[in-house]
């Protein structure tokens, strides 16, 4: 299946705008669940305002949050997809730039040393474009995640050691949630990466934080830890916006990778309540947009 770069560019453009406007159904369900179980009166109000905002964004066709984030694209290329790797990367970048200029979106991306904003949401290494492959022959999937900075600024890595065991992982997650307080715009999705190298561990945490609610870690031990930690962090009372309550997090998500015999790394990356993402599948039948 030949995919033209122009089609990828259009999809990359559309995905950035869609992601900023439409919250995925699993996150909406997450809000309904928290609103139903919350016992604190103020927290109920705060959740109610967040839910009202989702409705207003839809009615006014506006962005959910002013933070257009760091744009991230995750691409899964099927076995029979024919497109050059570098032309794919360039097309995504052009789509991201066009969304920013044409909508127009706030460009939230600057050079890290000069702090110069090119007003394109792009810069050296940004947007990050992650490429993976699948056995589905005629399918190219592009996921777009605008990662807000309030939650991204609360990211941690600890190179724990084997003697500290799983206790070090659990303690670290609890302490990260306490340190974050209201700064991450809770209720959050707490992404936890366990194992790997330092860089892989952080990447796992990001993957966990941006995974759909209601999905489980594919590893059974990881899935068990998710359930334990999800219950535990909501005992802390941080609450929505850090103003107190039961609803500190929608869930804790865990992703794992094997690690070295001497290592026990754990990373935490958080996703704010505006847990935005959008995806598109390009097949011979055309483009199907989803979340």
């Amino acid at each position, binding site marked *: 299946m030949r995919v033209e770069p122009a089609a990828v560019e259009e999809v990359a453009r559309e995905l950035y705008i869609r992601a900023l406007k439409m919250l995925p159904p699993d996150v909406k369900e997450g809000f309904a669940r928290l609103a139903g179980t919350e016992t604190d009166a103020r927290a109920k109000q705060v959740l109610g305002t967040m839910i009202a905002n989702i409705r207003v964004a839809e009615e006014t066709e506006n962005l959910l949050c002013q933070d257009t984030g760091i744009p991230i694209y995750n691409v899964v290329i099927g076995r029979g997809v024919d497109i050059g790797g570098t032309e794919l990367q360039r097309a995504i970048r052009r789509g991201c730039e066009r969304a920013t200029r044409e909508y127009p979106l706030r460009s939230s991306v600057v050079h890290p040393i000069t702090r110069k904003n090119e007003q394109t949401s792009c810069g050296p290494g940004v947007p990050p474009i992650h490429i993976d492959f699948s056995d589905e022959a005629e399918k190219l999937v592009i996921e777009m995640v605008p990662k807000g900075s309030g939650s991204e600024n609360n990211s941690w890595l600890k190179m724990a050691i084997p003697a500290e065991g799983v206790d070090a992982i659990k303690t670290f997650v609890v302490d990260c949630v306490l340190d974050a*307080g209201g700064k991450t715009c809770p209720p959050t999705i707490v992404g936890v990466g366990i194992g790997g190298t330092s860089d892989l561990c952080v990447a796992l945490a990001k993957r966990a934080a941006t995974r759909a609610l209601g999905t489980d870690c594919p590893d059974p031990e990881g899935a068990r830890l998710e359930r334990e930690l999800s219950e535990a962090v909501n005992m802390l009372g941080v609450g929505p916006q850090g103003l107190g309550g039961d609803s500190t997090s929608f869930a804790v998500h865990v992703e794992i990778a094997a690690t070295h015999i001497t290592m026990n790394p754990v990373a935490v990356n958080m996703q704010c309540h505006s847990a935005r993402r959008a995806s598109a599948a390009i097949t011979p039948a055309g483009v199907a947009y989803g979340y």
Partner: protein
Amino acid sequence: MAHHVLRPPITEAQVRALRVNDTVTLEGALYGIRDANLIALFDRGRKTKFDLRGQAAIHTAPNVRKVPSSPQHPTGYAPVCVGTTTSARMERFTRPFLEMGARIIVGKGGLGKGSLDAFGELGGAYLAIIGGTAALETTWIEAIEDVDLDDLNPESIWKFRVRGFGPLLVAMDSHGGSLYDEVQRVSRSRREQTLSRLGVK
């Protein structure tokens, strides 16, 4: 738990009447400040044309659209989506900002002890808005009336005209009250119990 409607300029007496758990609705002028423009003002010696005495400011950088200048859009900017950023990064700028005469900071996630002390000594308050609810917040913005330090766009200093902006929650006041401190005390006191539930030895 009183409700206050404030239209800047706000007096010291008005701001000192605010207590945590009160609510506020703002009317009239609201200035947008954040990282780059505060660094410009307080680390790089740049000046602003705005007289901030008695004013309210929000930690923000909006999405805007360039439009022809008109009475509705005097700066040639129309608001697209205006929301609130995490206040903690602006912690060290609270005191000098209040020293310029500002009275109110609107933000999300709260500020620290240095800011709380400054609110007490200089007469100021922090009003919490619900972060991530920018679509709603944008409906409270009437216009972008003026802009300064626009070379920092989108981190310019914005002057919005707002109508029915709120209700906002008084989360830090000039009497040493901070809802964030209260919640942090509670949540930290639950750490051991939480770890014990997780079987941590």
